[in-house]
């Protein structure tokens, strides 16, 4: 098999020049042509809805152009601001606790002292396979104030019942725990896989240099895990900002509006209240939030890699 390399450019080519170079090579040209249908599908399914959303966000419910009117109105709408605040707090809480839990589980299962690793891994990733709504309904039953197993357990040790989903303060953590239950296995499986890739001689060298277990973890293990951890954090943060199924199934946004996320706000305004245009403005904010989070996380990864 012969391999043709790209013609070397004296100066670093721009993206368009790179495409032009690719086009000069028959195999690459074929590859580009084969990619074209997928590219068109992606453009149609992503770009078109985005354009429609932007157009709707810039007009009133009656279709008149209002410029940034809907976006500025969002900035003064109490319900949206509270939904945004909840979303950010909720996402941060979920990803941080899930990361710590997932990392801890990965280290434990990776330990040489744990037998039957395959069995543990299978058990631990079960929550990943359960749908949002099923998770929410099962947890809702466990949280039930009178017949729920959690309050029953508390009563066995003489503790008072907790209204898990019935107060704003407890609902935040209760819904967060459901999301963590689903999110921690993701961190676990990603980090466990990353741990498998760390060469054993790294630890041997560290041991020779006199590094203890804690030191080896912070100086060897963590730097190796950081890229995977960062990508996993980004994915889960974006996922948490879009939390919807768990909210609908567990609390319907309640009590009151205490667990409204931005996604739930969008759903309520778009489909229940028929304010598609105003909801589209909120969609833009959510997309922007996602992009900013993605850029920040990726920047963090590249900076670390460049620094290394």
């Amino acid at each position: 098999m012969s391999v043709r390399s790209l013609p070397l450019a004296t100066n670093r080519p721009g993206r368009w020049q790179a495409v032009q170079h690719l086009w000069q090579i028959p195999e690459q040209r074929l590859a580009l042509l084969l990619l074209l249908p997928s590219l068109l599908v992606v453009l149609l399914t992503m770009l078109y809805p985005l354009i429609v959303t932007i157009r709707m966000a810039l007009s009133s419910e009656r279709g008149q152009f209002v410029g940034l009117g809907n976006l500025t109105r969002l900035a003064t709408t109490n319900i949206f601001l509270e939904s945004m605040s909840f979303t950010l707090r909720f996402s941060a809480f979920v990803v941080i606790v899930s990361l710590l839990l997932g990392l801890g589980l990965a280290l434990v299962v990776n330990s040489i002292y744990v037998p039957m690793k395959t069995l543990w891994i299978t058990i631990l990733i079960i929550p990943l396979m359960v749908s949002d709504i099923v998770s929410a309904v099962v947890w809702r039953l466990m949280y039930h104030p009178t017949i729920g197993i959690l309050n029953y357990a508390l009563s066995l040790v003489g503790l008072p019942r907790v209204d898990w989903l019935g107060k704003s303060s407890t609902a935040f953590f209760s819904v967060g725990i459901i999301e963590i239950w689903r999110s921690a296995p993701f961190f676990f499986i990603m980090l466990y896989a990353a741990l498998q890739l760390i060469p054993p001689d790294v630890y041997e060298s560290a041991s020779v240099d006199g590094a203890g277990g804690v030191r080896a973890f912070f100086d060897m293990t963590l730097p190796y895990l950081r890229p995977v951890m960062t990508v996993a954090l980004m994915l889960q943060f974006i996922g948490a900002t879009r939390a919807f199924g768990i909210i609908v199934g567990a609390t319907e946004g309640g009590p009151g509006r205490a667990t409204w996320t931005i996604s739930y706000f969008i759903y309520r305004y778009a489909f229940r209240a028929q304010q598609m245009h105003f909801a589209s403005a909120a969609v833009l904010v959510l997309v922007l939030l996602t992009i900013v989070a993605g850029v920040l996380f990726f920047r963090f990864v590249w900076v670390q890699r460049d620094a290394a």
Partner: protein
Amino acid sequence: MAGEPSRERTDGLGRIDRRVTRRQALKTGAGIGAAAAAMQFNVISRRSVRAQGATIRILVPQGALADGLTKTAPAYEEQTGNKISVEAFPYQDLQTKAITLAQTKSGEYDLYFVDDPWMPNLQPDINAVAIDVEYGYERDPDIFDVCYDVFSWPPPYGPVPQSVRDLGLETHQYGLPIVGNVILYTIRKDVVEEKGLKIPETWDDALAVAKAVTDMDAPFYGWTARQAGGNVDSIPILWSLGGDILDDDFNVVLNSDAGLRAFEMIKELDQYAPPGSVTYQTNEFAADFLAGRAMMGMTWPGDTLVAMEDPAQSQSAGKLLYMNPPAGAPGGKGASVLGNWGLIMNAFSTQRDEAYDFMTWITSQEHSLEYAKNGGVPFRKSNLNDPELVAKFPWYPAQAEALAAPPKWRPRTSAGSEIVQLYGAAVQIMISDDLSPQDALDQATRDIEDFMATAID
């Protein structure tokens, strides 16, 4: 064009005499008569159309609400050769689906089950068929007027949104009632008698009864309520005490003395409710009655009353009294909330005649008894007063009384459902987070005003 010489002439003062000849009058009369006969024939022929083999597709809610229809439909299928295909969705999804299908002018379904607050969102004048115009449907005096009125558009009385008024539409019948739901106050009459209490006439009486019977350790709760979602079940308290969410011009008027008194009453009643009832959905609410640990609450005939009156599964069976909600003050009258469901014909259906045939068949006097026995929630006076049915479904007389009252309907605006949801959210947070009634009123007012600022009425 050759024709009858006209008698048109002037009287010399510029006035025109347009009297017609006898022949012209006869011709015109004959023409009108022929047209009327043709229209009548059209109506009769359309009503008699039963194209065998058609499949009528109906969008319905999941749960017991469509039981009557699905269990009675086989008789129709046998009689006509047409098939009834029912597709069920959870409440929220059904609302979204029905409205989205209407907006996209889809003919996927011939008939929609529509909860009455959704009427404005459905834009019936565009997306539904006016059956009085197209099929000459005439009201049946055996069906409560309010059950017809709520599926007429624009609303025949009460506030009408400005955007709808601007269209200058005539009111027409866009659907037929299929579920005669109305909220009822429900109380354990055996406990009232046993404790020597009185059936509450006012909400203050109800509060006193709740306080007198509550035993948190037993447990037996003086009050229980379904509070998740829009907290619609607390609206009779607000209305009975003289408050309201919106006025006739759709201004938010919740923050009033009556509103405050209602929020205080809701909060006080909650002291005698089961722990955690603030997140109760329908099944959790019914479970308290099934277990015999609830004294009173607001119930909907279409939800769980069949189970609550079934001795095999309910300890409250045969012990419940149903009535119109208590009044705000002695000598006053309590207000109930209408919650009818209607069968609406999709304007984009390609089988209108078959759909019309089925909707009139299932709602007819002839088949209503079977419909009710199959679990349908009646909307006919004769059914609700039928001794055989009343023996089986003891809430029927109260339901008939509430429908005759008549009950009030929720705001007839496309923003109505969400307005009620925001009201309910404020009530819920008042109870869950121990917010003061005034703070909750302020929150509800602010949220609803915020919402209406961008809503189309």
